[in-house]
């Protein structure tokens, strides 16, 4: 299962590095959001610091949707999804492969855009960078795990680009609330670290439950 998933993920990432269609769009979009935010909020003002944790997740969520939409819709051209489905593997391998590719891409977007955000807002982390990386990982994992599943569900619809955000936001709201709260504490107020850890535990539990559910249910979603 893992071998097939890695083959699919490798194919997606290789294809993306060649065409730069999705990753390029995601990074440009993230850059534009940061630029607009820098115009809207004065970086010299101290209250702007309060906006940063939210801005981090706005970038991840909206640029993430761009990538998720494309990842499964692209398999409809020449019905390549059928090629994957008739190959000797479980449908969960396709899900796992797509998840790994999407997760890698969102991590690349985060690595590029978040330092740019901090730089533009002259934001200095007073909390812990390690915990910040952990919360990014936990939040992105949950968002992409659910997003990949829903993208597969929406890809069969003609208006998939409209349908995906409508399904994704309500489903991922516990993840987004949890990680935004945790990010706020970790970046600005480390005295409340225990509260941040509680939020992260909640999000991690949600991640595991939904990852397993998506893994089991993907077979029914992918059926022609």
């Amino acid at each position, binding site marked *: 299962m893992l071998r097939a998933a890695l083959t699919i993920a490798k194919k997606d990432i290789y294809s993306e590095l060649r065409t730069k269609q999705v990753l390029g769009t995601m990074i440009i979009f993230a850059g534009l959001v940061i630029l607009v935010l820098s115009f809207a909020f004065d970086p010299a003002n101290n209250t702007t610091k309060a906006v940063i944790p939210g801005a981090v997740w706005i970038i991840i969520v909206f640029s993430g949707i761009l990538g998720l939409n494309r990842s499964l819709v692209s398999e409809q051209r020449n019905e390549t999804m059928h090629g994957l489905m*008739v190959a000797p593997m479980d449908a969960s391998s396709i899900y796992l492969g797509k998840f790994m590719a999407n997760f890698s891409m969102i991590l690349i977007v985060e690595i590029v855009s978040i330092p740019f955000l901090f730089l533009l807002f002259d934001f200095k982390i007073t909390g812990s960078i390690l915990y910040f990386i952990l919360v990014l990982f936990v939040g992105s994992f949950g968002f992409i795990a659910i997003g990949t599943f829903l993208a597969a569900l929406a890809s069969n619809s003609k208006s998939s680009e409209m349908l995906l955000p409508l399904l994704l936001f309500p489903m991922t709201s516990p993840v987004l609330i949890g990680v935004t709260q945790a990010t706020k504490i970790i970046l600005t107020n480390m005295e409340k670290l225990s509260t941040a850890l509680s939020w992260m535990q909640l999000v991690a539990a949600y991640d595991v439950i939904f990852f397993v559910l998506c893994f089991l249910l993907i077979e029914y979603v992918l059926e022609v």
Partner: protein
Amino acid sequence: MIEIKKLTKQADNKLILRGIDLSITQGETVAILGQNGAGKSTLLKVLATLIKPTSGLVKINGLDLKKDHIEVKKMFGYLPHSSLLYDHNTPLENLVFFGNLYGVKDVENRARKLVNDVGLSFFINEPVKNFSRGMIQRIAIARAIIHEPKIMLLDEPHTGLDQGAITILNNVVLSMKEKGCTTLMVTHDFKQAAAICDRIIIVKNGKIADDFKINSQSLSLVSEKYQVLVEGGS
């Protein structure tokens, strides 16, 4: 080789397959004919595990299609009307990717040989998006047989092909037959069906209306039976 019993498929309250019973032995080349909407492609998609049947039993080489689907999928080479190829990738990359999914050993050499066999070795490093329909179908044929399948499922494989590609496809089917490969081909092309198949199945309204063997490429027999059963009866 293939045993189908009381196979039904219902979609949106419409019964597409209405109790198909079929037995195909190893090495047979079978054409499935019928009007549009008769259920031919649905039957092929059920066999290819793309669609789950509503009821009935399908056994391939003694293996249950539902329970042993991974083992069964290894035996199939599926060639639908679409190419199932990635446009941005080259023929070699496409074949290596699918070969890896099937666990083919020495996949790159096998892919190079197949590209050579279908006469496109000169274009091995060109993206598939630049190819004509005939060239794409040649690579699609190579993709379908990359893992040396025991059963080939072909859905309207001759549609839109030039004469060269038709010859390559027919040669592939016949050479695979010599190796003991079973072929099921959904088609509207009676001429090609008569040329390469040794058994014809006519499907009408989700049921098998006729099932007969043909000898000496008898196109007139196929056309006659089809007209009586399908066009005469409708």
